[in-house]
C-alpha cells in the first residue's frame, strides 16, 4: 500500500516535471524543472533499494550536469529566441506522430514480449547494497570501469578544446 502510494505520486511528479521541461517557454525555467525531475527520479531509486544510485543521481545530475546547463544558458545570451521564427520545411506535427509511434511500440514490447530472463552472477540484492555494488564495480566490471574513466577524461579534454577560443 505504502509502496503503491509512493510509486504513483513519484511517477506523477516525474512525468509532470518532464512535461514542463519539454514545454516551458523560458530555457532557465526548463533547466529548473529538470532539477526537480532528477530529484524525483532519485527518490524513486531510494524506493527501489538503490541508495548509492540515488546519491549519485543527486550529485552528478542535479549538482553537476544541471549547473553546466545553467552556465551555458546564461552564457548564450539570446537576442532572437529560437522559437520566434522557424524553417518552413519543418514538420512539427510529424514529430509528435513519430513520438506517439515510439510510445506505442515501447508499451507493446513491454506488455507482450517480456519473459523472466535467466541472470547469473550478482549474487542477490541485500537491502544495504553499496558494498555489493563496489565489489562488482572493482572486481567483475573492472575493465568497463576503467574504460568509463578514460571516456570521462577524453570528454573533459574535448569539452575544453571545443569551448576554448584558440589554443
Amino acid at each position, binding site marked *: 500500500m505504502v509502496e503503491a502510494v509512493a510509486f504513483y505520486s513519484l511517477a506523477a511528479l516525474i512525468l509532470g516535471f518532464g512535461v514542463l521541461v519539454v514545454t516551458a517557454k523560458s530555457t532557465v525555467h526548463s*533547466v529548473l524543472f529538470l532539477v526537480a525531475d532528477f530529484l524525483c527520479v532519485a527518490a524513486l531509486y531510494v524506493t527501489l533499494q538503490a541508495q548509492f544510485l540515488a546519491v549519485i543521481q543527486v550529485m552528478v545530475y542535479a549538482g553537476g550536469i544541471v549547473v553546466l546547463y545553467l552556465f551555458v544558458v546564461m552564457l548564450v545570451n539570446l537576442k532572437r529566441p529560437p522559437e520566434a521564427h522557424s524553417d518552413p520545411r519543418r514538420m512539427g506535427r510529424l514529430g509528435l506522430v513519430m513520438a506517439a509511434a515510439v510510445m506505442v511500440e515501447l508499451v507493446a514490447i513491454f506488455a507482450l514480449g517480456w519473459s523472466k*530472463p535467466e541472470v547469473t552472477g550478482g549474487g542477490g540484492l541485500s537491502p544495504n547494497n553499496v558494498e555489493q555494488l563496489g565489489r562488482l564495480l572493482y572486481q567483475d566490471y573492472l575493465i568497463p570501469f576503467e574504460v568509463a574513466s578514460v571516456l570521462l577524461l577524453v570528454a*573533459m579534454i574535448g569539452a575544453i578544446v571545443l569551448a576554448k577560443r584558440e589554443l
Partner: protein
Amino acid sequence: MITITHYMVLSAALFTLGVIGVMTRRNIIIILMSIELMLNAVNINFIAFSYHLQNAIGQVFAVFVIVVAAAEAAVGLGIILAFYRNKETVNIDEMSLMRW
C-alpha cells in the same frame, strides 16, 4: 501491488517525453535536456529490473549510463558554445552547415 510493468510503462512514458522534446523543440539546449530525460528513463528501467530480479548488476550498468550522460552533456554543451560563438544562435533550424 506495483509490478515491473508499472516501472516499464513509467520509463516508456518518460522516454517518449524525451522523444517529443527532441522532435518538436527548436532550442538545441532543450533538445540536449530531452536526451538527458531519455537516459533517465533507461536508468529507471535498469534499476527496476535490478530490484525485481534481485541482482545488483543492473545498478552497475546504471552507473555507466550516468558516466556517459555526463560526458555527453560536457561535449554537447562545448559544441553549442563553439557554434554560438560563430553564428550567434541556438536554433536547430539554422544549424544547416552540414546538411546535404
